């Protein structure tokens, strides 16, 4: 069974599809899953064990070229033509399209035998063949409030699977963990960590720096937690203002805004005990790596649709009748749904989350009249429910089932990943994608540095350490080749000098995988 999943953009939407991977593998034994995504999200999926083949299209670049560079149209046209023709040769049995029109057109061009989630034909234009897709479309279009199902569950249903049959999931590699540790170790190591993601893409979705500052102050004053500030480079300034606030306890805040590529971010989130955030891609990533979330929902964000998926997350949502709104820019109520949620509500949710994860209970939410607190619970067959807190009678024990982090063969795993990256780079070289080659090489070197760090450990076998020392000159040569953009020498160094060494130390891990 060859299955194609199409979702190219928005981190959160991509992650909400990850339950499909174990779900489909379980339903169709031996299924081969291909996923089409945008190249800026490839890094988050390229080592997912549930994906057999990841195909990335430069969607953002295409959008720019198509809008602003009409002279590039023939080139983009030919690239998409060739891409879709290649898909056609794969002969997919089933396409699960979660990209609406774009996915429908790609599904048609791929000539799939069956399409779920929206399809296209020149005779009928865009159609939705399966009832789940039609129902979801009607819900989103006419009555979002009537919807009580998370998009992750809708996707499972569209794919012909039972809602709640599989968890959201994202692997965290040893290299991610090492990079996360390096970043987080900027403050004292022993205390637990609460991550705070202040931004969301658009201003009406932002809860406000001052609100977050108050929450952070309370956490720092009343607990031994450290705070890690997350966000994009654009959010760095706001994060800096908190880091530099002299009224906050010093030395317990790390500002990682703009410093966490997607892979590192998953390592950081796994490290944290809880994430406080609005409805963001980071929220879904935390849920996918098993970290508890306290989510603040308002404006267009609707927790039944896009709330953090999994057991035991907490969601704050105002009781404002008009929420979720469609046009926050035209709000006539001064965005009450947002201002109703106060820093003290988030602190209360934090206390409750602490009590739950310690195995205890909290008797009352104590949030007043304007705000509700929900706890998430997933059941196979019905999917995710939002249970009003403290009404926990329907579910015993809401402690989040956090996946256990099993210390693995760190050196072997990093070496195996480096070998995979080498294959990708050599493919980019032969396909004449020089930008991709150089960017993959930077990521390769990052992992190699991680590996070098691991090999400094006193328990490293002397023969491996000696072998690593023998390849050090080639790493220097690679840096020189990078300088002169000499791709051939770079490729040779990877293939003939570094790879045999990596093969040697990765083989125990590869044998295990086999």
């Amino acid at each position, binding site marked *: 069974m060859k299955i194609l999943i199409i979702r190219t953009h928005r981190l959160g939407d991509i992650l909400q599809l990850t339950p499909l991977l174990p779900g489909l593998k379980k339903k169709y034994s031996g299924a081969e899953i291909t996923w089409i995504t945008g190249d800026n999200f490839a890094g988050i999926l390229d080592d997912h064990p549930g994906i057999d083949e990841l195909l990335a299209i430069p*969607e953002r670049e*295409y*959008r720019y070229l*198509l*809008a602003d560079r009409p002279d590039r*149209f*023939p*080139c*983009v*046209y*030919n690239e*998409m*033509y*060739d891409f*879709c*023709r*290649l898909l056609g040769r794969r002969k997919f049995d089933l396409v699960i399209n979660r990209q609406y*029109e*774009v996915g429908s*057109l*790609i599904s*048609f*061009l791929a000539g799939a035998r069956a399409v779920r989630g929206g399809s*296209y034909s*020149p005779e009928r234009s865009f159609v939705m063949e399966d009832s789940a897709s039609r129902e979801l479309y009607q819900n989103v279009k006419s009555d979002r409030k009537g919807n009580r199902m998370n998009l992750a569950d809708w996707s499972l249903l569209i794919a012909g699977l039972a809602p709640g049959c599989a968890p959201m999931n994202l692997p965290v590699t040893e290299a991610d963990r090492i990079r996360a540790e390096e970043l987080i170790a900027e403050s004292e190591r022993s205390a637990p960590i609460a991550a705070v993601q202040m931004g969301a893409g658009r201003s009406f979705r932002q809860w406000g720096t001052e609100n977050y500052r108050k929450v952070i102050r309370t956490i720092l004053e009343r607990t031994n937690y450290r705070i890690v500030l997350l966000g994009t480079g654009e959010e760095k300034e706001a994060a800096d203002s908190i880091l530099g606030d002299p009224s906050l306890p010093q030395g317990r805040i790390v500002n990682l805004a703009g410093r966490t590529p997607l892979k590192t971010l998953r390592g950081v989130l796994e490290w944290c005990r809880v994430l406080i955030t609005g409805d963001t891609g980071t929220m879904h990533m935390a849920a996918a790596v098993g970290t508890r979330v306290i989510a603040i929902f308002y404006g267009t964000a609707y927790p039944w649709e896009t709330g953090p998926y999994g057991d035991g997350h907490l969601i704050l949502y105002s009781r404002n009748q008009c929420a979720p709104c469609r046009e926050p820019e035209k709000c006539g109520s001064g965005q009450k749904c947002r201002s109703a949620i106060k820093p003290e509500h988030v602190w209360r949710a934090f206390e409750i989350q602490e009590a739950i994860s310690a195995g205890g209970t909290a008797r009352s939410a104590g949030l007043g009249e304007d705000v509700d607190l929900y706890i998430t619970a997933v059941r196979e067959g019905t999917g995710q429910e939002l249970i009003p807190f403290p009404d926990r009678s329907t579910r015993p024990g809401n402690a989040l089932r956090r996946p256990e982090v099993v210390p693995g063969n760190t050196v072997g795993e990093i070496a195996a990943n480096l070998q995979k990256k080498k294959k990708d780079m*050599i*493919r980019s*070289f*032969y*396909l*004449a994608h*020089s930008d991709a080659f150089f960017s993959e090489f930077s990521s390769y070197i990052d992992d190699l540095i991680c590996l070098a760090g691991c090999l400094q450990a006193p328990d490293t076998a002397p023969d491996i350490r000696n072998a690593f020392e023998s390849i050090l000159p080639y790493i220097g040569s690679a840096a*020189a*080749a990078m*300088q*002169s*953009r*000499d*791709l*051939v*020498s770079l*490729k*040779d160094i990877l*293939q*003939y000098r570094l790879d045999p060494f990596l093969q040697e130390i990765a083989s125990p891990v590869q044998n295990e995988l086999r």
Partner: protein
Amino acid sequence: MAQLETNINKLRRKDPDLADRLTPPPPEAGWELVHSPSGDLTAGRNLPEGFYLIHSSMDPRREAAEWLACQDIPEKMIILLGMGLGYPLRELAENTDWNSILVVEDASLFRLALAGDDFSDLIRPGIEFLIGPDPEPIEKRISRMAGPFSICAFLPAFNAHREFFRRILDTCHMRLFELRISAKDDFSETVKILLDEIRK
């Protein structure tokens, strides 16, 4: 130099103008031939940033075979952008099902290739050499392509004369686009709709 003369003499029978152009050394040079451990030749030159290689310094034939394995070649007319010393061309000619191959290369590198190896099996009907540095006649030739073709690029040779090859590549894309659009079939029309959707 004997190999170069032999190859140019053979080429003269097929394309006398090109043979004449190659007889005096082209003004841009700087390439040197280097033996790899596998016994095959590679070529490189010194740039201000460092040494720049065209083929693997370990095993150029294996590299060419791996290169071919990654190419998508659905059409029997092929345009090869950059052949270096000829390894990718030989792989294409020996291991694919083709009707015609148009080889685009810069004169200095092409001359070096003819000096380094026997091209008598590659100077033959069906294989056409379009040699720079002037892109205009090459563009005219590509614009006359009558049917769809596959475009293959050998990156190190392409990057060695990037501006020249980018221009030729754009011409290839324009011609291929014209040919595909003129087919007016469901596939080519749907790709157009797809791009409209991506643009939104």
